[in-house]
């Protein structure tokens, strides 16, 4: 079920209304768990089995880890959890990718691989598998590190894993953040409820009016970039830069808004990342729950920033490459991760070098001249998005050729609504840097709030592109 479907609105009204009726937390959680499983089954009822498997394994593994003082025993159960989660992820998400990558070697060794008969091996990718897998992995790891205690309430834990606002595309909520909230009935706050509604609406506007409009241009140009002129290819790349941000942050806003309507708080996932003046800053503002997950459960265990420069560089490259692979089973995603990893390494060593020479004020995440830093950062980010969006490396090559001016005689295409959406994006970023930032939250008693709210609802009804367009991050 997509957050922008009419069915979801009806579902949400029913779920929220019923959720505030029970006086006992167990009934409330049962209701929310039922609703969450229904929400997931809406795509494919068979996927629920995976959810049950992941929940069961991690619940029992965490209990065993928590209940034991034997390091070997604890490690064993941690390995069971990791293997189960990564095994499921590997099978459903990466099976074909690994087989395709390894095929030349395997064939030389005389090992038969599924190829032409691929239909027999078709594996459907369950929606949001990467998100709930990371969520449960972090839970077991936190219990193993004794950061939290294992949950003794299977219902709460099952709801934590399957909670529908964040189930399919995040934010990746840690157990320490959500489980305590699920253990009691939240106090109803009209202000928070209103805030939830506004955030839901804001997310819908971002997704439907900006991201989906931009997608209309992006999809066409990226399908055959060689047909379009250099300015049109540039427009499409800028449009995708906007689309991916507004699509994903729109979804996150909606997820946070829905959670607020139910009385819960989710962590922030975006802080206007395109205002970052360094690539390190970018990753502190973009998909924050994933980047902190990668930092806490991958980068730091690998050694983090301790050790020699080559070691730190290797840690960064491994973390970012796996981060790229997490997004999708394709070489373009891997290269996207490598690209960002390389950018982080370069920035880190460049900062250390300029700091040593005394040419910076000591800020390790920014450039001395913010405008230069911003230009470099946004260029790196946009080049990365070309890899991220392109269906293949060949297409990415064509897009880069277009950007570099090799498509002089192609189609000139200037979609006005795309330009309007980009103007809105620019305005949003400019306003965010001013005191009007608070105004954009539409406080309940501000005179302009009802005007803007009603206008936005009408705009959603009138200007939404026709046709169903799922969120970009659903595929991950």
């Amino acid at each position, binding site marked *: 079920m997509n957050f922008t479907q009419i069915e979801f609105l009806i579902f949400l009204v029913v779920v929220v209304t019923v959720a505030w009726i029970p006086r006992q937390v167990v009934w409330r959680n049962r209701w929310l768990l039922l609703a969450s499983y*229904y929400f997931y089954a809406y*795509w494919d*009822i068979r996927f629920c089995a995976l959810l049950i498997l992941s929940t069961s394994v991690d619940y029992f593994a965490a209990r065993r880890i928590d209940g034991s003082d034997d390091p070997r025993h604890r490690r064993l159960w941690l390995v069971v959890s990791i293997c189960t989660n990564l095994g499921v992820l590997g099978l459903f998400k990466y099976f074909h990718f690994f087989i395709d990558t390894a095929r030349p070697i395997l064939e030389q060794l005389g090992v038969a691989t599924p190829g032409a008969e691929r239909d027999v091996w078709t594996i459907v990718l369950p929606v949001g598998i990467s998100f709930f897998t990371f969520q449960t992995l972090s839970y077991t790891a936190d219990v193993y590190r004794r950061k939290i205690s294992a949950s003794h309430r299977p219902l709460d834990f099952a709801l934590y894993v399957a909670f529908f606002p964040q189930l399919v595309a995040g934010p990746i909520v840690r157990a320490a953040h959500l489980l305590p909230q699920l253990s009691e009935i939240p106090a109803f706050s009209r202000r928070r409820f209103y805030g939830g509604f506004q955030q839901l609406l804001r997310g819908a506007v971002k997704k439907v009016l900006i991201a989906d409009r931009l997608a209309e241009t992006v999809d066409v140009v990226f*399908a055959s970039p060689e047909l379009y002129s250099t300015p049109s290819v540039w427009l499409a790349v800028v449009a995708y830069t906007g689309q991916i941000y507004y699509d994903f942050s729109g979804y996150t806003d909606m997820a946070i808004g829905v959670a607020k309507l139910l009385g819960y708080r989710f962590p922030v996932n975006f802080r206007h990342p395109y205002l970052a003046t360094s690539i390190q800053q970018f990753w502190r503002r973009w998909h924050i729950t994933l980047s902190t997950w990668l930092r806490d459960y991958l980068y730091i265990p690998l050694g983090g920033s301790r050790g020699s420069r080559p070691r730190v560089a290797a840690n960064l490259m491994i973390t970012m490459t796996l981060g790229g692979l997490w997004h999708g089973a394709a070489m373009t995603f891997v290269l996207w991760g490598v690209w960002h990893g390389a950018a982080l390494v370069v920035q880190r060593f460049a900062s250390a070098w300029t700091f040593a020479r005394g040419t910076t004020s000591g800020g390790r995440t920014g450039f001395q001249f913010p405008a230069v830093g911003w230009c470099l950062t946004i260029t790196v980010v946009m080049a990365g998005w070309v890899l991220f969006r392109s269906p293949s490396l060949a297409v990415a090559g064509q897009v880069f050729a277009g950007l570099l001016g090799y498509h002089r005689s192609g189609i000139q295409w200037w979609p006005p609504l795309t330009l309007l959406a980009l103007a809105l994006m620019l305005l949003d970023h400019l306003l965010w840097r001013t005191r009007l930032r608070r105004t954009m939250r539409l406080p309940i008693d501000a005179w302009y709030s009802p005007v803007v709210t009603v206008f936005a609802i009408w705009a959603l009804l009138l200007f939404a592109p026709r046709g169903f367009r799922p969120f970009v991050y659903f595929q991950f």
Partner: protein
Amino acid sequence: MKPRLAANASSSRPTRTIGQRLVSWTIGGIVGTLLIAAVSPWTVRSYLPQVWDDVRGRWVYPESAAYRWRSEGYATTTVGPHGMMGRPDWRPSASSTRPGTRWAFWGDSQAEGVCVSDDQKLWAAIEQQWARSHAAATKTQDQKASPSGQVHVLPFAASGDDGWDWYEQIPRVERAWDVQGHLILIAELSDLRVLAEPIPESVSPQSTEGGTRREWLRWTPDFVVHAARGLLLDPRTRQLRRLRFRPGPLIEDSPRKEAATEKDAETRWKLGDPIFSIRSSGKSNKLWGAIAKRLREQSDRPILLIYAPLRPLIVDGRVLWKRPETIDPVGIDLLAEQHIGWVDCYEIFVKAGRTGRFPHGFHNGQIGNGHLNTLGYHLIAEQVCKRLQEDSRYRLVQQADR
């Protein structure tokens, strides 16, 4: 820190009562709606009621109404008498008093041209092209090639129309306007092919004089209608939206129609479907013969069929260059025997496409996919005027008129 200070200052303000909030939200809601009503004409198409036109025997948009089109192209069409789109200056009574040749122009939405302004519609492009050719010929004193007098093209094309709609209206229009010939734009041969089938009962609808269809559209704001359609109708099928609440798996969408077109044509060719087959056969002769006969049943005046196929077309990242439908040369000969001309715009469209200029699509839709644009109309107009000048039968019409 500044935003935080502002937040603290705001939270210290006394909160409003529920009554005050209700009032402020009601007023705010009305203002928000009025704002939308004010800006929506720039972005939302119009929805007009239709009135019954006894002359043409069909529902048409009311005279003098302004018909906005916003989603593909950006234009406002002034509706003329008897539903002539973009031609408000022509009445049947005035028809015989104006000098020049009158051609009735038929087709579907590709010919109707609501995506472009009135002076760029195909009927206007033909008139302008004719005038240019006439002026150029007069200047060079090339009497042989000189097209005579003025040409007036009366637009009767309407979205969704096919062969039966033209079949029904041709004699009515001839009687009312005294047109000297007919131009019929065909984007898909299936629109013409229906004429080879038995006459459907609905071809001669009952007269509903004075009736108005969808009267409620007169007093309902366009933005309300547009929003309601978006909510209630399925965007793909245009049928009433059916909500789905049962668990999945979801059934995959069928492949897009356009993407299948090229393959379809190939398959039909293999199956020997006459309208898509180049092979001459008895079946093909019968089909084209039937089409020619049907058209001639309704009119003995010159008819020119203008074939403007949906090519080149950009679909799913591919440019479709091949003909979507292959024309049987025998069919063209059969039409010619009945004095029905055939103008094929495929080659000129493809030639333009090869230079990056596509005859279909708009900046606010997709370049290379959609309805004919100004360039497409210009290319067609050139072909039509060339044919009208070259073919002696059409020249005779001009000369007779002079």
